[in-house]
Structures are given as structure tokens and as C-alpha cells.
């Protein structure tokens, strides 16, 4: 067993892991059951987590390689997370099992590309499977996040400009 420093959703802890232990199993044992096995071969996206902001299929990832890495899981997102809000509003879920993976993929995409188009959203989500077929709602949710952030951004800029003018 090798002790590794794992920061999960901002909480740092030392976890002893075996060389073959999967990040998926380690996170689930820590109580993050939003991370789920769907295929075991990195082909469905249900086990997606963000490692330093980048998506990783935790069913293929050896935990020992994530020493000192910041991990984000869907259950650790802030309570007012805008991607979560827009998924809820767009009814982007049926059975819900795969949805946390889509939420994290959405976060990754919009951090890199705040103006993602429908085609770019589709390209980014092509490795995630929703067997209930909720793809349209998922795409809509992410398009709504793009619009919402753009709107918030403009409002913030307007506010800053007004503050500048009055100063």
C-alpha cells in the first residue's frame, strides 16, 4: 500500500492505495458514489471525474498515479452550481445513472470553451452514453449554461462600467 495525497472536492486526505487500485473504487470507498462503473473499459463515461480540471475515466485510472491531484466529483459541486441548475431545469435526466458524468464533461468543456456550440458540445460528449436517450435535454442544458454565463458576464461588465463611470 502506498499513501497518496488526494484532494477530493477541496478536501485533502491521505489514502493508502494498492498499485492496482482503481481511482473509481477508491473514490467510491470514500463515499463518492456519484462515480459509477458502467463498462470497465472507459467507453461509457459513467465513471468520469475531473482531475485538475481534466476529465478522466476513473475505471481505467490507477489511483496511485493521482498523488497530489485535485479530483472533482459531481456530488462535490457547489450547491448553486450553474451546470447542475441547468440540467435540473432542462429535465436532463431519466434514470440519472450516467448524468453526473455528463455534468462533469460539461464543466470541462465550458471551462475550455465558454462559447461552445451545439456541435462542439456533441463532440465533447460523444464518449458518454445515456441509454435512456436524454441527449437532447443534455445538449439544451449545456447551451443554457453558455447563455447564462454570457448573460452574467455581460451584466457584470455593465456593472463594472457603471462603477467606473460613477468613479
Amino acid at each position: 500500500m502506498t499513501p497518496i495525497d488526494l484532494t477530493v472536492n477541496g478536501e485533502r486526505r491521505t489514502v493508502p492505495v494498492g498499485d492496482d487500485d482503481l481511482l473509481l473504487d477508491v473514490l467510491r470507498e470514500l463515499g463518492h458514489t456519484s462515480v459509477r462503473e458502467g463498462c470497465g473499459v472507459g467507453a461509457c463515461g459513467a465513471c468520469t471525474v475531473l482531475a485538475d480540471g481534466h476529465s478522466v475515466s476513473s475505471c481505467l485510472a490507477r489511483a496511485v498515479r493521482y498523488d497530489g491531484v485535485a479530483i472533482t466529483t459531481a456530488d462535490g459541486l457547489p450547491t448553486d452550481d450553474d451546470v447542475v441548475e441547468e440540467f435540473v431545469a432542462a429535465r436532463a435526466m431519466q434514470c440519472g445513472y450516467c448524468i453526473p458524468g455528463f455534468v462533469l464533461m460539461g464543466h470541462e468543456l465550458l471551462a475550455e470553451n465558454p462559447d461552445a456550440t451545439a456541435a462542439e458540445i456533441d463532440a465533447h460528449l460523444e464518449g458518454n452514453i445515456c441509454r435512456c436517450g436524454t441527449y437532447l435535454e443534455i445538449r439544451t442544458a449545456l447551451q443554457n449554461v453558455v447563455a447564462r454565463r454570457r448573460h452574467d458576464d455581460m451584466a457584470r461588465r455593465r456593472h463594472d462600467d457603471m462603477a467606473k463611470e460613477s468613479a
Partner: protein
Amino acid sequence: MTVDSHSGVSAVGTDGGAVGERWARVDARAKVRGELRYAADEALRSCLDVVVTRSTRPHAVIESIDATRATQVDGVVDVVTGAELHAILGDAIFTGPAFADQPCLAVGKVRYVGEPVAAVIARGHAAARAGAEEVAVDYRELEPIHDVDAAVLGAPFVHDELRPSVVFGDLAHLHGIRDTNVNYEYVLRHGEPAAPPPGSTTVQHEFWCPPTHHVPIELPFTAAWRDGERLEILSTTQTPSYVRQSVADLLGIPLGKVRVRSAPLGGSFGAKMYDRLEPLAAALAWTRRTAVRIAVTREEAFLLTTRHGAAVTGSMTADADGTIVAADADVRYDTGAYADVGPRITAKSGMVASGPYKIAQAHVRSRCVYTNKPSAGPFRGFGVPQVTWSHESLVDELARVRGEDPAAFRRRNLLREGDVSVVGTPMHSADFVGCLDAVTAALDWDSPIERPTGRYRRGRGVAVGIKAVLTPTISNAVLQLNQDASATLLISTVDMGQGSDTIMAQIAAESLCLPEGSVRVVTADTDVTPYDTITAGSRSTYHSGNAVRKAADAMRDKLIDIAAARFGVPATDVKLTGDGLVSTQTQETASIPELLHGHFGARGTTLTSEAEFRTQWQPYDKQTGRSPQVTEHWFAGAAAAQLTVDTMTGRVHVEHLAIAGDVGRAINPALVEQQLTGAAVMGLGHALFDQMVFDEGQIVNGTLLDYQLPSIHDVPDKITPIVVENPHRTGPYGAKGVGETTIIPLAPAIANAVRDAVGIRFTRLPLTSERILDALSEEDS
């Protein structure tokens, strides 16, 4: 997404403000944040892990099993064989919903590659897996049979004799029959066979639907432990009530000694029902007096059940006026090594194998056939998509041969309200014409489309589907009204993404005028929630919904009686509104909290009501296959597609897909639209690429790297789900189910559009690029 909601006539008033509303799913936020707990997420007592050693042979006698090396693996506690369990449990080890033919561990013989042969119990999954690799099995190979049409003809036989279960009385006559692979045959004879009239047109084809897999993304999981003389099970199951009885029978213990809990399911589509991992987990926990957990891999999940592959020889005849006068179908369902519910599928699908049409003469022969492959079982549509593939291709071809518009041809021949189908049961609340018209209107069917003649060819196609709801069945509901005017609903319906927890809350809230968020549905637990036949076959909204409505109505009556006594007025003068109870005579009011507080003289109390709902049928006649009441109600759906075919690559691109279902009445239109759309996306996979490929009985694409499922790229440019509402006279607020409605006509709608685009009739699913290219080049040569 475009949504055209056709609001139908609402025969029943909805004063409660819940039915017909687009309430959010009760678990929406928990699902998005990943906080909803599925079965494998629950904290359990300490369990030993079980991994099974699987057969490497399709058909063989087990000569010996040597577990010596397995037991030496660090962490392995025990290795159990089928012979050992058989010695303890006897023939009760053979279970199944229609035939008691499947052992949880092979006894004497293996019948498919992947069949469980020995169970390794260990501390930790890795040790169990390592142990399972070390079990040495010595086989004497028998000749296998893989092809359904070869199996129909005769030897080799997968089973020495048929073993119908005690569940279905109408199978009793099959007990002990030997030397056949056909475990069930349904025959429909309607009308007198006659020579085709002069000027008539007949089309005939051989059709094939391959086996497919459900692939719910949540993997099957079962834990079982012995608690003194009781057995407790937590399982990913759509059928907790069935599993309770099945496990009690397996172990020979009273029903009351078995507790089965389910959990929210991460999809199922028929994969997680009847006997899956539960018999093995129960047998091991009970006989070894321990707690066990079985978590299978995706590769193993592919072996647990499949959709039936099916061959159909079909023909259809129209007279000179364009009336369908005769239809014939010979259907062979490949049920694999164990019957599971295949015999029911064979009958239920045989009844509708000639489609939703008025036909003077119909003949169907539908057979359920054993082969040496993984057992096939229920899958969204229950065998009906396979026969719809046949009748909707035939109808389409018949129209085209006659030079008629396929939609107009169908419209003239479709069954209408009150018409009696070929099976002898009348139509009600099944608006096939309405569904057909809705999907064709969405595609602007009567306006010609642009038809390029180069690399890309455009076409349009339509198909209609019919299915009978499972009958007879039973649902129960217990409702507790809490003193704070919230409610707790106890039912054994399992929410697996269809949204039943939300729908049932809406139905309960309606009679009681309760607001969104006030009704909690308890997850199925046979110690707590009452019997429900199964959560499957799109039956829950109608059956559980009726039980819930009756329980809620009974609760309303109780409240009114209590209020009448309080107000000193007759019950007929008391009304329940969103604000509570009011006397129309004295205008005196009392909120529910006030009323219950006054009634019980305490806070925190609950008022309880309960109800049952059952449906009846008349069994079909053995000779004709007909019955005046073969089903409680019918499902009607339609799909229309506009697509292009790339003649260079063979790829199909769906530009617009319209789907419609007559749901009687939409309890929650948003959830109905999701079911219509989700089933269509799944059906699109079946149409274009989704299939299990076997080589000599060995599955060759049983991983998600190899098995193609619809991704976001496969979604059509535009999807139009259309809710058609013709209220059912005995549905809760007129409602029926919806989960299967649009998967049924989906594949033929796509193939009919491909036919329209490139002029080629495909009879084998799926329409892969390769198959389309082959057909195009054959056409050229």
C-alpha cells in the same frame, strides 16, 4: 427539440391541479448531483464477494469440477457447485417465470458459453475473481445447436424434457414433453383461408431481427444475507414481488421469511427482472449461512439476458380495392438455453403479428425455440418490435407495389375505436389513425421532398405499432396521510427512469389537492410495500396508478367523513380543496393538519388508506388463439422518419423523426415526451447498428468497446414527440402507459424511409452501413 402537444379531450376533470402538470421529477436534483443511491451505493453489512466460473462450452456434460487450486487463492472462503446446491435444494434449483428450467449454477450440463458453473465466495472481489479463474472444469462436449431454424427441425435438443413452472396453468400440458426444442407454440386462426381474389396483390418476405442487449448503464447487483431464519435481499430488480416468491420457492421457506428490497434503477428496459442474480445470491446466503454480494462486470451482464432474436416468414395480401384481406406470419423466437419468459413473449407477440389492421383472414404461428445461447428474456416491447418489423415492412411494400401512398394505404386499413382485432378483442383508447396522422403531419408528408439524385438520397417512411398490455395483473397501494398534510405512498413499483415515483405522486396528489413535492413514494421493500405483479410492460401508470387513485379517493372520503362529523353536516356537504376541507352549508373550514390534529388529538399522526386493482382476461382459445378479452387495453404508436442515405458510405442520417403514442391521458406530459423520445433513440440503435454477434454460440462483441449504442451523434437533427390522448374509460384519469410505444414501430419506419430513398427493401436488421453498401452494389451489378 420541437414539441407538439396534441391536447386530447379530457373526459375526466382534474380539479386537484396535479394530473396533466409537468411536475419535475421528485429526484431530479439528486440524480444530477449523483446523490441518488442505487443498490450498489447502499452501505451494507459486511458481505463476502461472489464471482462465478463460467462455461467455456456451448453444450457439454460436466464430467468433474476441481476447485482445489481455487480454494488455495488467498481470501477464497468457499467454492460451490450446482451439484452441491442441487443436493440441498433439489429440483427447486430450477427456476424461471414460465419454465422452471434454469439452475443458478449448472447441474450436470452446460447449455451456453458463459453459463455459471461454480461460485467462488471470497473476502473481496479481487480474490473471488482470482479464485474463479482457478476452478478447473472437465467437459464432455455435446453437439450444440445455434441456429433457431435448425433447432425447430429437431436434434440436438437443448433440454431432455420440458419443465413448465407452476406459475402459468396454461402451460401444464407441456410438462415432460421430450425431444423438442420448441417449448411453446401459439397459433392464431382468424377467418377462413381463401384463394386470393382476382386483381389482388401479395407480398412475402423472410425477416430477421438479431438478438440485442438492453445495456442499462447501471450494472446488475444483488446482495443477500441470512438473518436468523429469514433471508433478506437487496437487488437491482424490476420485480421485487416476483423475486420474493421465487426465492421462497427456491429455498423452500415461507414467503413471509423472505424480504426483497429494490432501489432506484439506473435503467433496466427488461434486463433486471424475474430471476437474474437473485437465485444464486439467495441460495449461497441461505445454505452457507452468510452474507454475499454479487456485482457483475459489463461483460458478464451481456450473458445474463438478451432480447430475442426472431425470424419471421410473413405475407400480406390486398384486394384490388386496396383492402388488406389476408396476413400470414410464421414467427420463431430464439429464446436461447433457458425459456425465461419467452413463451409469454411468443404468445403476446403472435397476437399482433399481423399488425393493427382490419383483416378478414389471418394466420399466425409463433414458436419459442431453445438454442445453445444465453437466455433471452423481456426487453422493452416484449417481442412485439420483432413482429412489427415484419408487418410494417410488408404493409409498406404492399402499398408501394400497388403504387399507393404508404400512409394512405395504412390509414384505410387501420383498426378504429370499437373495431375487433384479428385476436378477437375490441379496440378502445388506441388511436392508430391519430398517431399515424400526427407523425406524418409533423413531417409535412403530403408535400413532396427534395430528392437529390447524387451521392445523398433522401426518403421518408412511416410505421404503426400495436401491443397488448400484460393481463391479468395485480397492483396494490397503501397511502399514509401525515398530519402535516404531506403523504407517504407505499407501492412496489420500481422507478428505473420512467418516472413512476413522480407520476404516482401526481395521481395521489390529485384527489387530495396536495401540492407538488408533498407526496413521497417509498422504494419497493416487500416487508413494507404491497404486492405488485411487475414493473414492466408499460403497465404501471394504468395498474399501480389505478390502485393509487383508489387509495387516494378512499383517503379523501375518510377526510370528508371526519370533517362532516367535525362540522356537524352531512358528508355530501363537505368538499376537499387545496386549502383543506370546507362545509358548503356553513362555510366552516379546517385544514388537513387541523382536521387530523382534532381527530387523533395528537401531532405527527397518520391516516391510512389502501386499495387493490386487478385486471381480468379470458384465456385465448387453444385452437384459434382468439379471445374477446385477451388484454385490458392496447398500446398504439407511430413513427415517421425523413432521412438521407449516403450511397458512398452506406450511412443513414436521420433529419427528422416524429413519434406519437396514444397514452390515454398524459399524467405528466414532460415525462411522456421523454419516454416517447428515449424509446425512439433506443429503437434507432436497433434499426441501424445495435446487435449481439455470436460465433458458434460465443458472443464476440460483449463489451462496450465493441457493442455500439446510440450516442449524442446518432440523435436525429430534429425529434418531434407527439402525445395523443384518447382517455381510457377505466384508466386513472384516462391514462395508460407509454414506455414501449415508440420503440415498436421505429425500425420499420427507418427501413421504409431507406426503401423510399434508395429503392431497396431490407428485411434483416440492423441496417448497418456495410449492409446498405452491399445492397447498393448488388443493385448496381
